[in-house]
């Protein structure tokens, strides 16, 4: 989760860059560090750096990280030719690299050729069976195709090995909620609460879930809301009656 100061810093940098001031590279680094999803801004400012040869050479060896970031942002914004261009550049520089192979598989996924992307991911997994990103991309592919039960299966298999990954637990919880499997979703939210007890959103989500499961659990909901409001001094003080 992004802290308040970091979020303020990102917004400030974003304003600065949007209005023509410098600092695009710091903005991109911060977005990459905090793993935010601001693909249009990243694409715009990243391309402005990459297309300018002097700025590009001033980056040194971080240029390739920027290419990767811009490629992913382009795929998110569906500018597939931009992504293809970036991936080609990376391929020329690092032939046979697993990271570039991953980007290519993501490009196939973005184009919508699910079967080929699935094959590419499987072959990448053969080389390195413990690549977390590839496992998660497979689950994302299933979800994008609308196959929620397949996504659940993928995520469950992933979580059997990597059970401390709270992002995956949150994703699984959301899928369960969308399928109205509240008992399983509650289990996932409990895992989230255990790994991040200071994050009020997990408590809120868990509390919202409790009344749906049974009226008895609404008492738990009140307890959760109280513990959540204890955390956030200026947040919403929900004290829902059972």
């Amino acid at each position, binding site marked *: 989760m992004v802290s308040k100061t970091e979020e303020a810093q990102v917004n400030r940098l974003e304003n600065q860059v949007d209005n023509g001031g410098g600092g695009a590279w710091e903005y991109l680094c911060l977005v990459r560090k905090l793993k935010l999803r601001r693909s249009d801004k990243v694409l715009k400012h990243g391309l402005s750096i990459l297309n300018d040869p002097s700025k590009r050479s001033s980056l040194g060896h971080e240029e390739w990280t920027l290419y990767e970031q811009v490629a992913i942002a382009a795929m998110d914004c569906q500018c597939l030719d931009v992504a293809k261009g970036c991936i080609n550049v990376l391929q020329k520089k690092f032939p046979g690299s697993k990271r570039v192979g991953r980007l290519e598989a993501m490009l196939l996924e973005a184009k919508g050729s699910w079967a080929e992307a699935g094959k590419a991911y499987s072959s990448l997994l053969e080389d390195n069976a*413990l690549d977390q990103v590839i496992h998660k991309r497979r689950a994302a592919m299933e979800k994008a195709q609308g196959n929620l039960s397949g996504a659940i299966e993928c995520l469950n298999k992933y979580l059997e*090995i*990597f*059970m*401390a990954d709270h992002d995956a637990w949150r994703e699984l919880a959301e899928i369960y909620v969308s399928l109205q499997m509240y008992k399983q979703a509650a*289990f996932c939210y*409990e895992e989230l*609460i*255990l790994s991040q*007890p200071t994050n009020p959103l997990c408590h809120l989500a868990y509390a919202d879930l409790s009344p749906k499961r049974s009226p008895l659990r609404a008492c738990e909901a009140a307890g959760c809301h109280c513990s959540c409001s204890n955390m956030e001094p200026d947040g919403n003080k929900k004290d829902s009656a059972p």
Partner: protein
Amino acid sequence: MAEDLVLDTAIRDWVLIPLSVVMVLIGVLRYFVSKLMRSSQLPDAKIVKEGQVIVRARNLRAGANFIPAKSFRARRAYFSNEENGLLFVPKGQAQNAQAQMFSDPNMAMDMMKKNLSMIIPQTLTFAWVNFFFSGFVAAKIPFPLTQRFRSMLQNGIDLSTVDVSYVSSRSWYFLNLFGLRGLFSLILGEENAMDDTQRMMQMGGFGFDPSKGMLYWYSLGQRDGGKIIQSLWLGEEHTVLVTNLIGMWVASSGSDCQMLALYQIFVVLCLVRSSIFVPIG
């Protein structure tokens, strides 16, 4: 009561500064060599899973108050169930894990390489300092010291009336050894191989290897203290660290400087032994 000795400035120019410069250069060299020699090791699925299990179990212990009692009990049973609990490692199997690590050549080689890259430059530099820079007073420590430190800090100086604050270059070497860590983290970035002093303090222990099945200790805590949420593992961790620190203090304040050399040999042996046992996770 101390007569002030006037030290030649040539000592500063030709002993203190070159020694520091040499140590910095050797550190940088070691960093690059370790980067070159680092073999990319594919993580073992079992080890990764065990590490994650431990993180999850630790979270469960820490946040037990936030989830309903029934869920907590269900999870605890999942981890410490006698038949198929994730953390349950019967005594026999824990020993097997060690034997397996013994026979796993890759891991052992890796650990050995890392430790050797630390020991060899240290030993060589120490020998070089002793050979070239012994027999004279190198520096004065700004605060007064007791007589017990005389043998450790003044080993080349055979006058017993010189104030203990006047030390030989060997102590300058040790000062640099522990003090340049901060400098290295500045110039080499965060991830550098220079935290060997840290590793030395953690692993140069007195016979206790913390990696003797993290799961084993965890399962003991869960099984024996089922109702009591007691961090047996954390207790063990702290005991290890304290034991090591006491050991280092005992060895370094010995009355004979040979004790220091003995301690170094002991550290080497322990490192060799404990380098075979790679901590899980």
